[in-house]
């Protein structure tokens, strides 16, 4: 897109590179620091004497005999039962993504192909639902869930997260299906397909780019959720994020601050990998609709 007359001067390039570099440091350095520090002992990561200890690992060398240690990882995964939290997160994430895409594609397809006025009101309602702070919804769930005796278990949380995720998924897929030409499924209808057959055989093969984007956002919501999981699950069923918070809070683990640090790394690493692969879809999703996940 750059035209030849629109050249950048040398100073501008210099200032610009400097600025970008500085900004990159601001956004990336905290994660690198935490990653590096997670291999140290607490006396190094929170060093009273000298912050350089966190880099060199002086106390780590004294305590464990090496300048870096995986002790915090091993302990949090075994003793701290982080493996269980990971399992729960995987179960919740996979279920939420699958179910919300299934419901979302059907609903959004219908919304994009119907010409009646009520689709507009449904989309507006979805927008309002999307804006509801999750914690206000949770305050409405707790009492009925206690009464029905479904509090604390994974299936309840999965359904709740799917529902919370629906408005955004609907909007995203709605704007995606709008870009799929109507003639495609209309010709199938003329040929004698039912609406469902048209969806199954004509739309499904071409909807994957949109589905990947919507799936990515569902995944981030389910994987990152704290409000819903921390209040709707009991301690044994905690997912990663509330588990990390629990490591910090309870007296039982107060000595094991490094568990939280290492768990933060364990929890963010897979997410970063996935985003690295699907960066393009993520950005297209953020800019596609009028809403954000």
């Amino acid at each position: 897109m750059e035209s030849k007359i629109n050249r950048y001067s040398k100073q501008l390039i210099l200032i610009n590179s400097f600025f970008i570099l500085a900004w990159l440091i601001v956004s990336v350095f905290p994660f690198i620091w935490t990653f590096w520090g997670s291999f140290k002992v607490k006396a190094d990561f929170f060093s009273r004497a000298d912050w350089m200890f966190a880099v060199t690992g002086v106390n780590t060398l004294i305590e464990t005999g090496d300048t870096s240690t995986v002790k915090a990882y091993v302990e949090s995964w075994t003793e701290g039962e982080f493996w269980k939290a990971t399992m729960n997160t995987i179960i919740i994430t996979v279920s939420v993504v699958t179910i919300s895409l299934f419901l979302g594609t059907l609903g959004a397809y219908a919304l994009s192909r119907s010409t009646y006025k009520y689709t507009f009101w449904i989309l507006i309602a979805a927008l309002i639902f999307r804006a509801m702070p999750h914690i206000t919804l949770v305050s409405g769930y707790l009492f009925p869930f206690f009464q029905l005796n479904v509090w604390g278990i994974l299936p309840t949380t999965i359904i709740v997260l799917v529902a919370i995720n629906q408005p955004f998924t609907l909007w995203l897929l709605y704007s995606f299906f709008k870009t799929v030409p109507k003639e495609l499924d209309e010709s199938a209808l003329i040929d004698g397909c039912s609406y469902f057959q048209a969806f199954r055989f004509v739309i499904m093969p071409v909807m994957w780019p949109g589905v990947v984007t919507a799936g990515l956002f569902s995944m981030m919501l389910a994987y990152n959720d704290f409000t819903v999981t921390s209040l709707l699950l009991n301690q044994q069923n905690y997912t990663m994020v509330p588990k990390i918070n629990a490591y910090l809070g309870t007296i039982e683990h107060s000595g094991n601050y490094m568990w939280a640090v290492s768990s933060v790394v364990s929890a963010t690493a897979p997410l970063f990998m996935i985003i690295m692969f699907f960066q393009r879809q993520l950005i297209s999703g953020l800019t596609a609709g009028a809403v954000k996940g």
Partner: protein
Amino acid sequence: MPHRTFFWFFFPSGLAMLLFIGLPIISSFFQSLHIEPEQILMEVEKCDPFGCKTETKVDIEATTKLQEEQPLGRFNGLGTYGDRNHLAFDEIKEAWTNSSSIAEFTDILLNLPFYKALLFTLTFCFTVTPPVVVLGFIVALSVNTITKSLKGPTIFGVILPMIVTPLIGSLVLFWMIDAKGILGSFIQFLFDDPNLSLKSSSQLTWITLIIYGIWHNTPFAFVVFYAALQTVPQDPIEAAIIDGASRYERVRHIVIPHLYPVATFIILICLMDNFRVLEPIIGFAAEGVAQSLSWMIYNDLRSENKMLFGSAGATSMLTIIGVAILLTPVLIRTWREFRTER
């Protein structure tokens, strides 16, 4: 698409939203009209060799029985909304008549839990959003000019703070600004004060939270601006170059006007998202000095043995009213877009 087909396609999704978003709001409202049953007290006479004393004790049996009969508690109407922890009408009236100056009145007002939380929530919303928009725009402009091969990795690096959940993001920063962490010691070194800690005063904690908010939200503004920059028409820019406009003038008079609608969109979304701020407060362990509306609800629901459903419900309703006010411009905008589309 006929109504019937539409219904079956949309039914599962609609049902899920109705049951788990629509109903909870109603349920929250219903809860807010009730209040937890009071504990039934009984007098017990306790005798020891030195005489008898009467003690008041909680009659556990009767209390549990009452709780079973009325799990939601007794009906309280709109009473919870007006109590000390919410809108606090009585306290405000009293403060209004008793305080000698406006300053004293505001002081009393802002020490009431609800207004304190509202003040923080609004301060957070309105101080985070403007820098986010400005920084997002500058970062987008400058990423847009770098070499193509470097763009991918740069964008990945820039969006990282947005990808991690706010709790983890705030923890990561919190550990660094801890008095014993790298940034904390750097700040101490900078101000030459070995006892300086960002956690020590409420103003500093607020500033830390706001900086976190900017750090977390800028990537979103960046992404949206960056995408919008790709759609800026090139012809007027080239014409401006020929007419001798400087780079600054081109940005000021061509690019920025083109991005106005996008900027309003970012502002609205940012305000709405930051209105529900909760996790950073937990991550930074700032409950003592900075409470938000969401945090008040979370706090009411956190304790496992005695959850204050009524109080949480009332705060939820008030929060929803706040969101509704912020949401109105978004709704009007969407409505207009729809009308022009048809």
